């Protein structure tokens, strides 16, 4: 990581943003399940609670509680307004009526191919992507300008390869959004897009980089060649399904597609180079911010990338302001800001895992490392502490949606860890070179394929072990169960350590 994790001797950890961030997150999570009215009422109630606790000024926790309540109020209000906005315009009513409409869409994310079971057995491929409807024309013929997020299901040619920010016109049928999705409607496009616009210049540039990287990795074998673009820009279109399954089984899912760790690695590399070149702190910060923004545009704003990018920006701002860079406050600030900017992240599993893993890295890993270091060489303790902490903290969440617990996660991550940074950095260099020098990019990609091949090998080897993954009940119950198991295991280990290591400790 790029921020200081350790504390100066005697310094008290800065947790001032911890309760506001947690309160905002929890409040947004809950409010996303409410109607807008209830959400706004809750926001007012939180404001009242904040006022009440602020009145008790002198008591120790007054300001802390007031801050948490205010942040919860802000999140509830932000959610309520957004949920209310989803119901605006003609789209929700048209969706309830299953109306045939013509929509002008702005593509929200790369359309991806999905295999679904057909009605008569077999499977068919559909293209799915989120989009924003900007104009709707029902059969009556009166066009309305709207601004409603929709989820698009399409088939046929012409949809794959469209890029975010492109406009497209298509007709089809609206239906109610899937429950739990924060959209105004689902749009079943009946054919190819009638007309399309051009992406914005920034997205065109991102498209050039992505396709360049795809071309540069094309000659490589499928496993590492498919993984490399995934690590850099999240493009997993070439990755064989078996490799993806292996990564899931061994708890390496965060390596399949780009994640927060990759952002941190790139930011760290850029800052190091900037310092090397002799840039002052302002220049370093600028270079870092530029790298972060570029990375988010190219790799697409997925939850974990956003988490890392926001955190990185906070760190970079601290760098520019000459403040001490402290990671935990940066993480809290990132959570708070992102929940405010896009409250739907509060229910995103990817976001939760990213935050939890980072939190584990910052809070749980250092003491774990100290503990391990009593019994093993320091480098091993260091290497073991990070995956252990992240796995222990993330396992309940993963179990709740994936229905399995990966027992191989800690050793697999331990072995995979050293390869991630070289693979990412070489991949980014490939991506930067590819648009203007394909031959050179292919050379670099060949080197980058070595660590990628190692990752694929680790996943395949560990996936073969019996019991690599144990199935577990899904849902909240599963998460709570596993959380309790983790706590019990930790407690038992502590007792064992105390009993066995009294003399050494």
């Amino acid at each position: 990581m790029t921020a200081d994790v350790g504390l100066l001797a005697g310094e008290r950890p800065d947790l001032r943003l911890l309760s506001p961030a947690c309160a905002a997150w929890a409040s947004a999570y809950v409010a996303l399940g409410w109607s807008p009215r209830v959400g706004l009422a809750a926001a007012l109630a939180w404001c009242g609670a904040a006022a009440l606790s602020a009145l008790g000024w002198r008591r120790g926790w007054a300001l802390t509680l007031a801050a948490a309540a205010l942040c919860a109020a802000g999140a509830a209000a932000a959610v309520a307004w957004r949920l209310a906005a989803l119901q605006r315009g003609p789209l929700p009513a048209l969706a309830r009526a299953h109306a045939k409409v013509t929509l002008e869409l702005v593509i929200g994310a790369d359309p991806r191919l999905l295999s679904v079971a057909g009605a008569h057995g077999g499977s068919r491929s559909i293209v799915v992507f989120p989009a924003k409807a900007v104009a709707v024309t029902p059969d009556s013929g009166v066009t309305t300008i709207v601004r409603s997020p929709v989820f698009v299901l399409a088939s046929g040619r012409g949809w794959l390869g469209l890029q975010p920010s492109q406009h497209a016109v298509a007709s089809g049928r609206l239906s109610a959004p899937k429950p739990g999705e924060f959209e105004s409607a689902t749009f079943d496009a009946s054919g190819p897009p009638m007309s399309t616009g051009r992406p914005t210049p920034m997205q065109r540039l991102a498209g050039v980089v992505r396709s360049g990287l795809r071309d540069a990795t094309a000659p490589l074998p499928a496993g590492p060649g498919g993984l490399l673009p995934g690590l850099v820009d999240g493009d997993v279109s070439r990755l064989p399904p078996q490799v993806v399954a292996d990564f899931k089984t061994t708890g390496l899912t965060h390596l399949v597609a780009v994640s927060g760790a990759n952002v941190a690695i790139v930011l760290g590399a850029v800052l190091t180079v900037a310092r090397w070149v002799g840039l002052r702190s302002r220049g370093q910060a600028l270079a870092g911010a530029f790298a972060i923004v570029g990375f988010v545009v190219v790799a697409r704003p997925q939850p974990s990338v956003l988490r890392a990018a926001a955190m990185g920006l906070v760190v970079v701002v601290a760098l520019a302001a000459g403040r001490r860079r402290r990671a935990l406050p940066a993480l809290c600030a990132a959570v708070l800001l992102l929940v405010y900017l896009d409250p739907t992240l509060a229910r995103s599993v990817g976001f939760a895992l990213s935050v939890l893993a980072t939190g584990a890295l910052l809070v749980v890993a250092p003491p774990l490392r100290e503990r391990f270091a009593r019994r093993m060489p320091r480098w091993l303790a260091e290497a073991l502490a990070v995956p252990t902490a992240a796995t222990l903290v993330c396992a309940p969440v993963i179990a709740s949606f994936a229905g399995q617990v990966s027992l191989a996660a800690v050793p697999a991550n331990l072995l995979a860890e050293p390869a991630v940074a070289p693979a990412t950095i070489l991949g980014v260099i490939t991506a930067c070179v590819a648009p203007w020098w394909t031959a050179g990019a292919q050379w670099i990609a060949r080197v980058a394929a070595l660590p990628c091949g190692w990752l694929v090998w680790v996943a395949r080897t560990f996936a073969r072990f019996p019991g690599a993954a144990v199935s577990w009940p899904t849902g909240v119950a599963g998460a709570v169960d596993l959380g309790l198991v983790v706590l019990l295991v930790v407690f038992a280990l502590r007792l064992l350590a105390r009993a066995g290591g009294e003399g050494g400790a």
Partner: protein
Amino acid sequence: MAARLARLRADAPPDDHGWAPSGDVVGAPPSLPAAVAARLPATVRGGVFDPGRRGLAVLAVVALLAALGGAWYFTAARPAAGAAATTRPAAATAGPDRPPATASVGALTGWPTATASASSESIVIDVVGRVAAPGVVELSAGARIRDAIAAAGGALPGTDLTALDLASKLTDGQQLFVGIPPPTGPAAQAAGGVVGGDPAPGGDSSGGAASSGVVDLNTATLAQLETLPGVGPVLAQHILDWRAQHGRFGSVSQLRQVSGIGASKYAALAGRVRV
């Protein structure tokens, strides 16, 4: 406050449990919370939670901004009419081809609909100014300013195209001024050097027809018609009904045929509408 900050900065050595005896900790005897606190990982033990008064103020502002941002999002999602479109970020829209006040199908891409009048197979654009071959060009429906300039032989070297939104779509019958200012006059209020057009979507992307006061009868929405003097929702609906029945207004004078518009009302409206 000052004392609290000072304490924050001073590297006060934590006691055994990591809890410095300070006002930040509720003055409770060693209880369950204290016992839990003492067992927290060293990285967070004895942490400072109190944001201080200034911190509280900053967080309050941030929370307020979040709530206001949500409200803005809600406002921006308002359907139709100029108000919604003016709050839309320009980058997210297709450009001046769909001016906020005139949500016309024809202006968009020529979709087949009841109100779209002319056939939308192709459009004819008059390209004038600093292009290699000025003149009338025929383009496929949905063509953009970039295509029109290309069809006219391309812009001459040294022509500044920044004032033109090259990505914006054209509509039939428009005149495109490349590198020269459009002639002044009521018709030339259009943005980006584009003037005229069949559904006449003139009007810039910020103001729109509603603010300039002239409403296009063939593209106006209910809300825009209501901005006209003496036009309420009922009369506005009558106008829309007439338009739906007849396809489009051929001239402003056909307004007289709409039920509810007599001579005096027509006189009041005639100067405020166009076709």
